[in-house]
C-alpha cells in the first residue's frame, strides 16, 4: 500500500509538471499579451500543484528510509528503489523532477503532447482540466489527508482552467471556417490520448475511487462544450495508453531534456 501511495502521488505530480512545462513553452509566444499571461498563469498553477505532490512523495520516500519506521515498509518496492537509490541521501521535490528518467515518469500521454497551434493547446487543456476537475473533486475526500488537502486547494485553480479552456474551445469551434478547421485538426490529434485517463494503473487503487467512473461525467462535459462549439466527438478511435506506467510517446524525452538539462549538467545549481 505504501509503495502504491508513492507511485500514485508521483503520477499526479508528473501530470501537473509535464503539462506545466508544455504550457510554459508559450511564455513570450502567446497570440496576444493577455493570452500569453493567461496560459503562463495556468502553467504556474500546475507547477504549484506538482510541487505539492512532489514534496509529499519526497517525504514519503524519506520516511521509508528511516530504519524501523512504523509507517513505511523498508525497503521500498523494487520499481521505486531503483531510482530512489540514484536520488541521493535525502530525496527532495527537485530530485524527483530533475533526476528521474523518461520511463520513470508516470504522466498521462495527453499531458506531453506538443502545443501545436493555439487550438491544440486549448483543447489539450480543456480535456485535461475537465479530467482534473472531476479527479480532484473526488480526491479532496480521500482518506489520505495530505492528498485531500492538495486536491482541495487545486480544485479552485482547475475550475478556472476548465472555464478558460472551454471558452476557447467554443470560441474557435464556433468561430471562423479556419478556426473551426483548426479545432477539428486538434481533436484528430488529441482524442486518441483521452482514453488512457480513465484506465486505472495498479497504483491508482490507492485513490479510494475508480478513475473509470469519472468517464461518464467527463463525456457529459465534453459533449456539452462540443455541442456549443459545433464540434463532434469522434467515434471508434483506437486509444493510446502507456504513459501511466512509463511507456511514453517520443515527445517526453525532449521535454525532459530541456527541463532537466541544467540540473543534470550542473547538479545542485541554484539561482
Amino acid at each position: 500500500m505504501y509503495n502504491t501511495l508513492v507511485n500514485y502521488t508521483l503520477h499526479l505530480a508528473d501530470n501537473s509538471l509535464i503539462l506545466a512545462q508544455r504550457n510554459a513553452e508559450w511564455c513570450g509566444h502567446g497570440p496576444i499579451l493577455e493570452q500569453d499571461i493567461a496560459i503562463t498563469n495556468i502553467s504556474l498553477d500546475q507547477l504549484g500543484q506538482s510541487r505539492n505532490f512532489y514534496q509529499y512523495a519526497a517525504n514519503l520516500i524519506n520516511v521509508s528510509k528511516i530504519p524501523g519506521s512504523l509507517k513505511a515498509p523498508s525497503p521500498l518496492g523494487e520499481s521505486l528503489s531503483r531510482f530512489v537509490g540514484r536520488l541521493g541521501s535525502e530525496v527532495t521535490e527537485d530530485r524527483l523532477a530533475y533526476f528521474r528518467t523518461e520511463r520513470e515518469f508516470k504522466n498521462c500521454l495527453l499531458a506531453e503532447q506538443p502545443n501545436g497551434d493555439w487550438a491544440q493547446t486549448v483543447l489539450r487543456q480543456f480535456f485535461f482540466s475537465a479530467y482534473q476537475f472531476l479527479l480532484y473533486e473526488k480526491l479532496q475526500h480521500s482518506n489520505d489527508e495530505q492528498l485531500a488537502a492538495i486536491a482541495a486547494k487545486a480544485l479552485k485553480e482547475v475550475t478556472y482552467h476548465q472555464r478558460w479552456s472551454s471558452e476557447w474551445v467554443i470560441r474557435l469551434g464556433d468561430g471562423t471556417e479556419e478556426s473551426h478547421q483548426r479545432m477539428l485538426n486538434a481533436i484528430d490529434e488529441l482524442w486518441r490520448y483521452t482514453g488512457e485517463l480513465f484506465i486505472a494503473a495498479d497504483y491508482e487503487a490507492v485513490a479510494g475511487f475508480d478513475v473509470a467512473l469519472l468517464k461518464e461525467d467527463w463525456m457529459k462535459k465534453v459533449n456539452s462544450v462540443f455541442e456549443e462549439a459545433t464540434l463532434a466527438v469522434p467515434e471508434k478511435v483506437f486509444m493510446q495508453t502507456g504513459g501511466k506506467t512509463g511507456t511514453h510517446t517520443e515527445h517526453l524525452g525532449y521535454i525532459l531534456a530541456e527541463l532537466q538539462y541544467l540540473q543534470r549538467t550542473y547538479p545542485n545549481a541554484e539561482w
Partner: protein
Amino acid sequence: MKDYKVPPPAGGSGGGSWPLWEVFVRSKQGLDHKHVGSLHAADATMAIENARDVYTRRQEGVSIWVVESKYITASNPEEAGELYEPAADKIYRHPTFYELPDEVAHM
C-alpha cells in the same frame, strides 16, 4: 447561447484587431471599483477573463468591471481651463467653515 465574437485570423498584430477595453477593479468589498488599465479582448466575456489574468493575479481584487473603451466619453484636456479653473477661487464650496462637535468622528 453566448454571443461570441470571432477571433481575428492568424498573423497580423494579434490583439491589435480586437477592441480595447478599460478595466476597473474593486480591491475589497465596500470599496469603489478603480480604473487599473486597459487590454484587448474579442468580447466582454474574454475581457473579464483577460482582466482576471492580467490585473488580479497578485490578489489585487474581488470584483472586475470592463467597458469597451469606445463607450467612454472623456473631457477634452484643452478645455481644462474653462472646465476646472473657475472652481479654484470658490473655497466657500468646501464645507470647511463649520464647527464640528467632538462627537462626530470620521469626517
